[in-house]
């Protein structure tokens, strides 16, 4: 090929390195941060592809104009915040599950996505309110019984610490309300494409430039994720033996710097590309939204259903 004179001699030797004849020795490498990062990024990309598939499938909510969808979900969120009884919230949740079903969202996925986290976060927040020393009420279960009231600093504990009926009902109401609200938000996001949802935000008078920046951020996250995967995969392909923690930390810090540098240069180039096509700093965007009869029918239906739930809740309160 003509380059032989420039290639060092050792590179032209073909020694058979590695792959011992006696085969594997049974000592497995631990999954390191390289594999973990690569897998995590792959997981994010897989999730986004799955969401995109759901958002473009021909389900009930997917066929609604994103602006109508956004406004009606906001309305249902307001209804959720206003109702005060657990049966109404359960009814609302069942209605959301029905919407999810008709929108071709796998129900187990949908339920798990919401309920795996809510008991942890909201549950921890509302936990103290189930006890009688925070919210006095009719005791359901007695936890600890002292012979006299106990004073812990400025907290005065009653003789018997118990879980109260009112406390439990209040906590259940809050957890359920959060669950229903999050379910609505999840249903909205998984049945809409991100770009369309961001554009729909403009019905709430969100400035165009803000929407444009959000759209671009979302678009370039994927590019930078690919850069990170390539960087980590390249490192993995050259990793022989197990690296030290110090080396790994150095690699990550240098990597962060590299990605920052790449993002910076890319942003300059993107700006030039925008200017080249006539961008003057004033965001001009368009959408392809078309209001159809089904959107109006949808809006009226949700309006009526919301009123029914609010009315039902009022009746329950009498």
């Amino acid at each position, binding site marked *: 090929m003509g380059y032989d004179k420039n290639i060092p001699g050792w590179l032209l030797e073909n020694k058979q390195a590695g792959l011992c004849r006696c085969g594997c020795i049974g000592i497995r490498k631990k999954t390191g941060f390289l594999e973990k990062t690569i897998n995590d990024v792959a997981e994010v990309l897989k999730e986004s592809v799955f969401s995109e598939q759901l958002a473009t499938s021909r389900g009930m909510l997917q066929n609604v104009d994103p602006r109508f969808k956004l406004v009606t979900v906001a309305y249902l969120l307001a209804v959720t915040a206003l109702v005060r009884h657990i049966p109404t919230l359960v009814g609302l949740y069942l209605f959301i599950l029905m919407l999810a079903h008709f929108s071709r969202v796998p129900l187990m996925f949908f339920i798990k996505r919401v309920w795996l986290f809510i008991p942890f976060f909201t549950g921890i927040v509302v936990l103290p309110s189930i006890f009688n020393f925070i919210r006095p009420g009719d005791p359901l279960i007695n936890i600890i019984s002292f012979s006299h009231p106990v004073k812990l600093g400025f907290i005065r504990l009653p003789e018997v610490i118990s879980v109260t009926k009112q406390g439990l009902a209040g906590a259940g109401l809050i957890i359920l309300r959060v669950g229903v609200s999050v379910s609505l938000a999840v249903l909205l996001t998984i049945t809409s494409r991100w*770009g369309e949802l961001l554009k729909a935000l403009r019905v709430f008078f969100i400035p165009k430039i803000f929407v444009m920046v959000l759209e671009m951020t979302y678009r370039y996250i994927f590019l930078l994720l690919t850069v990170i995967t390539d960087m980590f995969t390249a490192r993995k392909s050259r990793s022989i033996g197990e690296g030290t923690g110090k080396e790994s930390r150095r690699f990550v810090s240098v990597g962060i710097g590299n990605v920052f540098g790449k993002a910076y240069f890319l942003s300059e180039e993107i700006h030039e590309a925008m200017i080249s096509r006539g961008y003057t700093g004033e965001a001009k965007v368009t959408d392809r939204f078309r209001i159809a009869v089904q959107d109006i029918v949808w809006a009226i239906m949700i309006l009526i259903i919301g009123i029914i739930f609010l009315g039902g809740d009022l009746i329950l309160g009498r």
Partner: protein
Amino acid sequence: MADNTGVLEPTEIVFELNDVSYSYLNEPPVLKNINLKVHRGEQIVILGANGSGKSTLQKILDGLIFPTAGTVKAFGCDLSEENLNDRQFSRDFRQRVGFIFQNSDAQLFSPNVWEEIAFGPLQLDLPKGGVEARVNSIIEALGLQSLKDRPPYKLSGGEKKKVAIASVLAINPEVLVLDEPTNGLDPRTQMWLVEVLIKLHQAGKTIITATHNLDIVKDIADRVIVLNEEHVIAAEGNSETILRDRELLIRVNLIGEHYHEHRHTGEDGHGHSHYHHHKH
């Protein structure tokens, strides 16, 4: 020349560069004393090795950066930062000159292909119906129907380049500046691109392509400008003359000494050249 409304009038000379030099901050210059005239309807290739300053020269032609020395005229007017700050001048210039970047990812910043192509016409304040008609027709012309709702990260390299070209053509510029357009493209997409450029040239567009892909030069150049690694114009001439000058191509580090041009002639009498690397 610009009239008193700032609108650029048609001229025979599209670009005129006089003693143009450019350096990034206090770095050594990446372009030195460039003198160049580009005529209306010409197809020019700027040939040069990596780092010879092709991209910088093209960014100067597109008014994205401004020379540190010398002057640039576009359509008879000074292409200066001050003039480009004028709304009317800037809009007119941006409509007349389209730039296709080497890195398609920088050029595809919209959420999906349709909106990407619509970006340019929207900035030019076309009515909504006009934008839609224009975008749909360019999508059809370039055969991008199946891609129109796709986000950019779901496009292959070739598809990205096609969309980038469509997004610039949607502005209907009279001058098209392309930076290394065949980089990373498979042979079939390269052929597609060359055919598009030939058609656009036949339609009267001025086409300025920077490349180091010698295989496409003859098809897309009336005139070739060669930049060397000292960042000056090393030679200028028609594509036949430049490509035959092996000494020149070796001197500017575009080919090695074992590169050879091969010419194939088909049964229909049409021929094409390409370059091989091997010893004779």
